């Protein structure tokens, strides 16, 4: 299914299976995520796409009863290997959640959080906070009120703050879990544009419920249905000539 002439994957799964207790949620997933591209994961609610996203930074580890078999390789390092430091994985693979979840702290402290945890020096933190806020297109809106509460920002601004907070760690990969589902159309458009800009620096993996959004911003699309990866292809290819009839039906709105 995957075009073999492609360059090697940045992060990829190898026969990934996941269970929540006895519920087999992900079945034999093999997917490559290419470097500095936007890959979208689409599929109906409950198909396992968010769960799959959370395999890439081991957030599923936190859920009791979760069992994982198979590999997730960051280049050639399996992040589920027992020697791997999970905090290291999560620093390299950043994540932005469905609902903006800034800490009840100032704008500055939100962005500085990951850096402080790693014990960076104050001057370096100041510099990286500014850079990350600029990269998330938030700097001009907040530069005069860095020490105000993050809750004083609008929903869209909060989500860009969460992106800035993730970028401050200088991640290689950014996981976005339906990042615009709680936002208005204007804020959504801004975050979509931002994704297109950010892919010059990081590999982006986005889960979305919105097929049009996947079409607008992604280079590759994965269609997941009932825990299986039905189809993975360059977005243009999948949206014009889907190979699987289920993909075709989903894209045409027959179910969802």
């Amino acid at each position, binding site marked *: 299914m995957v075009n073999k002439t492609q360059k090697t994957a940045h992060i990829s799964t190898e026969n990934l299976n996941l269970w929540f207790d006895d519920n087999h949620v992900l079945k034999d997933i093999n997917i490559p995520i290419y470097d500095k591209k936007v890959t979208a994961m689409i599929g109906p609610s409950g198909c396992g796409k968010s769960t799959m996203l959370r395999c890439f930074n081991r*957030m599923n580890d936190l859920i*009791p009863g979760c069992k994982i078999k198979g590999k997730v390789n960051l280049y050639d390092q399996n992040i589920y290997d027992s020697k791997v430091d999970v905090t290291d994985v999560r620093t390299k693979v950043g994540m932005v959640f469905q609902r903006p979840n*800034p*800490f009840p702290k100032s704008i500055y402290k939100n962005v500085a959080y990951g850096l402080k945890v790693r014990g960076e020096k104050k001057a370096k933190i100041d510099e990286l906070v500014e850079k990350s806020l600029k990269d998330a297109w938030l700097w001009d809106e907040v530069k005069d009120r860095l020490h105000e509460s993050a809750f004083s920002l609008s929903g869209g601004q909060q989500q860009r703050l969460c992106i800035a907070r993730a970028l401050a*760690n200088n991640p290689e990969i950014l996981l976005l879990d339906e990042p615009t589902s709680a936002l208005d159309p204007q804020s959504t458009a801004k975050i979509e544009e931002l994704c297109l800009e950010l892919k010059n620096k990081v590999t982006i993996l986005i889960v979305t419920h919105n097929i049009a959004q996947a079409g607008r911003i992604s280079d590759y699309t994965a269609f997941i249905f009932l825990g299986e990866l039905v189809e993975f292809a360059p977005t243009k290819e999948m949206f014009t000539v889907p190979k699987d009839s289920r993909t075709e039906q989903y894209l045409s709105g027959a179910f969802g």
Partner: protein
Amino acid sequence: MDFKEKIFQSITYIASICTIVFLFGIILSLFFEGLPVLNFTSIKDFLFSKDWYPTMFPPKFGILSLIAGSFVVTLGALVISIPLGLGAAIYISEIANKRVKEILKPLIELLAGIPSVVYGLFGMAFLSPFLIKVFQVPIGLNAFNASIILGIMVVPIISSMSEDALSTVPNSLREASLALGANKWETIMKVVLPAAKSGVISSIILGFGRAIGETMVVLMVAGGAAQIPDSIFDPVRPMPATVAAEMGETAIGTPHFHALFGIAIILFIITFISILIIEFVVMRRKK
């Protein structure tokens, strides 16, 4: 309006009015009987003299020693109960799995249900001889003993209220922190605890109020000497113990009687302020 509904409404209304009447009744009688102590001593001598000789001629009504006794045992209790209570709260809310949590939580709450006289007995019969043996002190009924017993009594207050506060911190904040590469410990210390700060502070103040107002334990194990303690192993006479011990031997309307009510006013003011602070903290959080 339906007749039955009207009756029901009036009953609940009367019940709520009653609580207010009781509250103001108690406050009024407290000040009515307590303020006359100022006919026999100045407010300065009352609060800042350490001579409490209520049955001498002329009597001396300085309660500084009693205030000192109360604060020593209360602060001692907090030194013990804050780390234990907060530690238990963090363990139950953040670390324990569901089954351990279900066992631990009611057990700690059971600790709150033990009558204070039972704590007092424990302090007298077991802790006191133990302290004499271990620390080589002449008296086992002292400020240290009272601090330990009060501390144990306050643990469930701090732990259950802090645990509630920690549990209401949204999971999305923990996830955000962990996803940024923080470990569990950093997440608890830098995100969860600060987010639950107002609830934790409220629990500590409530514990303080409980400890400073607790009567039976200090009456039984604090030693009863009206003096400003030089060491934690000195016996002390906290305010509630003084009132409880002396009220029965005092004739109504005597200066001594009014002085004991005066002590009660001080206790009331202290707990009233602590409740105001809690309200203030909670209000600020809601804003």
